[in-house]
């Protein structure tokens, strides 16, 4: 579909992720031109509060992703709990209840790998704080498809395992402190 956006941002976060995203997302302008897809690991019974929580803090529209939903620019989509979120090449979102990957459903790898197929060099992948290895393979796929790979500086992250694993899997990833990531994304927009 030609109307689907040709760039997008994918973000993965786990332990400490709510705080990190509360620092990152509100710093993006209300007219941010690309869709943002997020997998955040949280206990299943708490996940449906994510979209309202962030919507109240952000200039951007924030919602939980629905199956077969056409992607729109400037919207933040959270993966629903207990489902994987994928992006189709035609620009629709897709959910799956396939088994957990690395004990995670939603899985950051599943989102990042499908988005890398869909957006190629138009994709920006961001791995934030977390205490497991999810997202490392995904970030590598983002880079391999020509996209931009970003990692939160592990030394300053709430939990460093996830950004560290992502950096190890993807040497080319740019390591940034959390407070610089929003600026970096805004800078890409001006390119």
């Amino acid at each position, binding site marked *: 579909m030609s109307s689907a956006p040709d760039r997008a941002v994918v973000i993965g976060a786990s332990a400490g992720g709510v705080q990190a995203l509360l620092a990152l997302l509100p710093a993006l302008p209300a007219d941010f031109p690309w869709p943002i897809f997020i997998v955040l690991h949280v206990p299943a019974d708490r996940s449906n509060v994510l979209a309202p929580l962030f919507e109240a803090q952000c200039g951007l529209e924030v919602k939980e992703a629905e199956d077969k939903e056409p992607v729109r620019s400037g919207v933040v989509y959270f993966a629903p709990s207990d489902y994987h979120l994928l992006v189709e090449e035609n620009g629709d979102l897709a*959910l*799956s*209840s396939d088994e957990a990957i690395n004990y995670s459903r939603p899985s950051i790898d599943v989102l990042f790998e499908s988005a890398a197929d869909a957006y190629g060099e138009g994709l920006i992948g961001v791995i934030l704080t977390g205490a497991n290895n999810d997202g490392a393979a995904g970030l590598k796929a983002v880079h391999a498809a020509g996209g931009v790979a970003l990692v939160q500086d592990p030394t300053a992250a709430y939990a460093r395992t996830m950004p560290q694993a992502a950096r190890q899997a993807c040497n080319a990833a740019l390591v940034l402190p959390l407070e610089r990531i929003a600026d970096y994304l805004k800078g890409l927009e001006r390119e």
Partner: protein
Amino acid sequence: MPHQTEDIEIGLLLEALYQRYHYDFRHYARASIKRRLLQARSHFNMPSLTALQERVLHDPEMLPRLLGFLTVQVSEMFRDPGYFRALREQVLPHLRTYPSLKVWIAGCSAGEELYSMAILFREEGLFDRTLFYATDINPDALRAAEAGIYPLDRIRKFTENHQKSGGRSSLSDYYTADYGRAVFDKSLRANVVFSDHSLVTDAVFAEMQLISCRNVMIYFDRGLQDRAVGLFRESLARHGFLGVGSKESLRFSRHAAAFSEFVPEEKIYRKREA
């Protein structure tokens, strides 16, 4: 680009499966089917999807093994307890007015949802007047559903879900524990027809009061989802009910106008009058 080559291989492999075995995954949502095929490729140690295609074309014994990857579905009994509570409290009071009932569990996989539904109907006193159809395309899944045996370590979650759904009995009334397995009572499948049926290629086979098809159509592309919802629409009696997965929606479907939202938060729809 290797990425494009892989897409060509996926298209050819799905076409081969269809022409050779009449299993039609050509209109499944591509991102998920691709993941599953790549998992199968690495599981079977194939250098490429083309090699996997050659193997399955020439070796029919590969088919069920590959189907295991393409149709794998993990469910639980009373998954999304709120759904079963809504059926119990809001849908069954309507069904109670019928002298006989037909219920279709479409894409029943290993049967967790079927047994949940049978227990619900028994608790509510509707079991004896109900005929259940449990269908799937995977013969191994159908055999597992017909057997009704689950590892005991899954029972704790099943029991918790059953309680949250408003269960009026104890789940342990319905199974016997045996060497680490829970064997569900065969009386629960006394009124069940297990059948090979494809939402992709097969037609309407009976008139239903309730159809439950959860987390099956998320694997279809939009055109195929339209076909399946159309099939449900034709299969439902007047004012019949359709339940879909908690994150699925008829909103993006061609048939959206044919249904009203009966319990919106649990994704239970009701067929409008024609």
